[in-house]
C-alpha cells in the first residue's frame, strides 16, 4: 500500500462519493472512515470538502457532521488544488470534465507523496489511471487495509457487505474473493 516504501502511514486522496460512503456506513459501531483514518492520512481538495461536508451540513446529513469532526481533528486534511502545468491543463480541458473532477486530478498532480487516490467514479478512475495516479475503488482499499494487517479479515468482509447497496453487482463479490485470497 505504501508505495514510497517508508514506514509512515499511507497517504490517501479521497473523492467525494467514496468519502461520503465511508462516512455513512459503520461496522461494530465504528464508521468505515474512522477505520481508514486510524490507518492512513486522508487529504481532500477544497471542492470535495464543499460537496461532502458543507452541502451535507446544509442538508442535515449526519455523515457530514462526522466528516467535519475529522477535519477539525486534522485526521482529514483539506488542501488547495491550484492549476498545474500548461500541458496538464490542456489535457484537463480536452476531457471536458467538471471543475470538481479537475480539482482531484490537480491535487494528485501537486501531491508528490500520496499512495492512492480513492475514487468510485468510473470516468474519473479511467483518467486517473491514464495519468498513472494510482486510483483505487473503496472496496479495494478495504482489501488493502486487511492485507496490511490494520483490520481483520472478518471486519473487512463486514465493511464490504454493508457498502454493497452503493455498488454495481460484481464489485463487492470481486473484493470478497480478493479477501479470501481466491483471486
Amino acid at each position, binding site marked *: 500500500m505504501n508505495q514510497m516504501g517508508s514506514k509512515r502511514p499511507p497517504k490517501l486522496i479521497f473523492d*467525494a*462519493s467514496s468519502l*461520503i*460512503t465511508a462516512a455513512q456506513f459503520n461496522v461494530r459501531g465504528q464508521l468505515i472512515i474512522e477505520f481508514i483514518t486510524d490507518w492512513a492520512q486522508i487529504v481532500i481538495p477544497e471542492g470535495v470538502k464543499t*460537496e*461532502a461536508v458543507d*452541502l*451535507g451540513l446544509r*442538508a442535515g*446529513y449526519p455523515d457530514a457532521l462526522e466528516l467535519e469532526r475529522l477535519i477539525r481533528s486534522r485526521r482529514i486534511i483539506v488542501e488547495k488544488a491550484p492549476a498545474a502545468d500548461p500541458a496538464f491543463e490542456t489535457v484537463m480541458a480536452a476531457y471536458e*470534465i*467538471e*471543475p*470538481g*473532477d479537475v480539482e482531484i486530478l490537480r491535487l494528485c498532480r501537486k501531491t508528490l507523496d500520496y499512495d492512492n487516490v480513492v475514487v*468510485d*467514479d*468510473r*470516468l*474519473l478512475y*479511467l483518467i486517473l489511471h491514464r495519468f498513472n495516479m494510482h486510483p483505487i475503488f473503496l472496496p479495494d482499499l478495504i482489501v488493502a487495509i486487511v492485507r496490511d494487517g490494520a483490520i481483520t479479515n472478518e471486519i473487512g468482509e463486514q465493511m464490504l457487505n454493508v457498502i454493497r*447497496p*452503493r*455498488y*454495481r*453487482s460484481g*464489485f463487492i463479490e470481486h473484493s470478497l474473493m480478493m479477501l479470501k485470497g481466491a483471486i
Partner: protein
Amino acid sequence: MAVEIAVPVDEKVSKFVKALAEAERKSYPEVVRLLLEEGYRREVEKLHASYLRGEITLRGMARRLGLNYRELYQLLADKSLPL
C-alpha cells in the same frame, strides 16, 4: 417539496392530457405531473447509464440534472442506483 409551475403547451399536447385524464380518471394537473415525473425518471436513468459507461462523471450527471453533488448522491441512493 412540491413546486407549482405553469407551462404553456401545444394544443395537441393539451388534448392528449385531457384524453388521458379522462381515460385514467385523473385530474388534468395530476396527469401533467405524472408525465413530467416519468420524463424526469427516464432522464435520470439515461444519464446514469451514461455514467456507468464512463461517458460522464457523477459531477457531470449532477450538473445535467440541476443538482448539487450531495443531492445527486442521495438521489442515486434513494433509487438504488449504484455509484
